[in-house]
């Protein structure tokens, strides 16, 4: 957990399944971000059960989630959603890769009164989720841009909390 003087905490969580093609993109973005950000912000990779998110979000003020989505956009493009203000968004992220997906986990956190103050989702439009496949061409090409977007988001969050 990364504490910044008197300003709460930030955590970046990449979600996905490393063995299902483009579904790994959230994990890969998290890995790139960890290299860029160093120890200043905690970056976590979450595989499997979406309920783990409830534990990962506990006590954190500002959560940035990164996950694969299928929302009808071009593969490799990114959608940014502020989940702190959006109560109905599951249809925007129709492709959950997990038994209890992140949409369910967020809704459950909201129902339990455990949602972080701010929670931003970066969803990457995906093409295929074949078992054992690597990232598809368009998603791989879009990777750097997503990393950059999320990096800027983290800097904004840090800046906001320092003022």
């Amino acid at each position, binding site marked *: 957990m990364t504490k910044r003087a008197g300003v709460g905490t930030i955590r970046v969580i990449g979600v996905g*399944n*490393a*063995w*299902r093609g483009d*579904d790994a993109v959230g994990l890969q973005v998290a890995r790139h971000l960890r290299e860029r950000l160093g120890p200043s912000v905690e970056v976590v990779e*979450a*595989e*499997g*059960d979406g*309920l*783990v998110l*409830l*534990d990962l979000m506990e006590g954190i003020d500002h959560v940035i989630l990164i996950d694969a989505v*299928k929302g009808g956009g071009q593969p490799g493009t990114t959608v940014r959603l502020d989940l702190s203000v959006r109560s109905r968004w599951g249809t925007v992220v*129709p*492709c*959950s*890769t*997990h*038994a*209890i*997906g992140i949409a*369910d986990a967020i*809704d*459950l956190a909201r*129902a*339990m*009164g455990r949602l972080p103050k701010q929670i931003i989702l970066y969803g990457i439009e995906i093409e295929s*989720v074949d*078992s*054992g496949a690597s990232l598809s061409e368009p998603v791989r090409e879009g990777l750097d841009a997503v990393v950059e977007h999320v990096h800027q988001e983290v800097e904004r969050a840090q800046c906001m909390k320092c003022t």
Partner: protein
Amino acid sequence: MPQKGKRTRTISIGTIARVEGEGALRVTVKDGEVRDVELRIFEPPRYFEAFLVGRHFAEVPDIVARICGICPVAYQMSAVHALEQAFGIRVPAPIRDLRRLIYCAEWIESHALHVYMLHAPDFLGYDGAIDMAKDHRDAVARGLRLKRAGNRLLALLGGRSVHPVSVKVGGFSRVPTRHELLGLTDELLWARDAAIETIQWVTGFEKPEFRQDYTFAALAPEDEYPFNEGPIRSSQGLQIEACDFEQHFTERQVPYSTALHSTLNGASYLAGPAARLHLNASRLSPLAKHEWEEASAGLSILNPFNTIVARSVEILFALEEALRMIQSYEMPRSSSVPVTPRAGVGMACTEAPRGMLYHRYAVDEQGTIREAKIIPPTSQNQRRIEDDLRAFVPQVLNLSTKEAALACERVIRCYDPCISCATHFLRLEVCEATT
């Protein structure tokens, strides 16, 4: 809805909600009689069987852990025991105990997830845990904390809570210190009390009247509740070792599912918590045995809707067993035994949260996998689920197709089918066809 004249009605569930992974159901009823029940399972273990061939044995535990994000330990345990059998290795008692302990963690986590998040909403009249949480916040909080207690134990033993990395052929890459394990005692004691509350909570749920004459099959050792060892027994008197599994349990392909159907002597059988309890109730830990005796006095294990009680009793057992092992734990001098590969075949069956999980590997003298076979519990239960539905559907034909489909889903969820960690939009589709 009442039907007049000749009519074919199809109850179809495009994707079954609140089961682990991907699955679909099609039930065809003609003139009031159930003609076909097809549970379609999209199951990746078959892919993994092919993927494992040509890999070094040491890679197997990490690869099979990826088959399922809910029960990775089960896949790892069946794999390491099968490979150790092929290599003629027996692990010492402390390693054996740690393997029981890590399995306890997975049962706690997996069962708590199913009981609270996936199954309880069926009995309390909610679409899912999120709706249920609005009215039953304390219960949902208890379930989440129970699950987290399992996660914490698993993370300590496995290196992390999802896809643990410490399990290897011959033992563990790292074992916890006594101090680390004792640090979990308070939380596990809380969880033990919460498990008793859970049993009492789910025992009070109103269950539909429905009974089937099951053949139960599970590991059943002489002197302990099963995890990793023991002969396989059935309620019909079968008693075999895991190496004879394929001689008695046969698989066949069905055209509508990627999962193979397993049968025992040509008929369906039931694996999982209810089967384990039926065959091993005398081997439960003291509190779990007491609670099961109290709860089972008023319920039938032949009603699949009571599996939520069986699963809850196993949460309590796993917590008592974990606490017992932690109290007596002494850190072993070595976390693993040396492994020298040799050519051969090894088989093992362990008790995954959802039932028996069988693995067989053929390995060459360099330790390269030449053949792999994985028979997960959901594949074994698939035929049994269809048999349940065949008997159950006539009870719900008076309902609308949508309501009937939802009732069928509830039967399927009793089995906690772990169809796999998979990729699918949770969506329910009901369609009706007439001819």
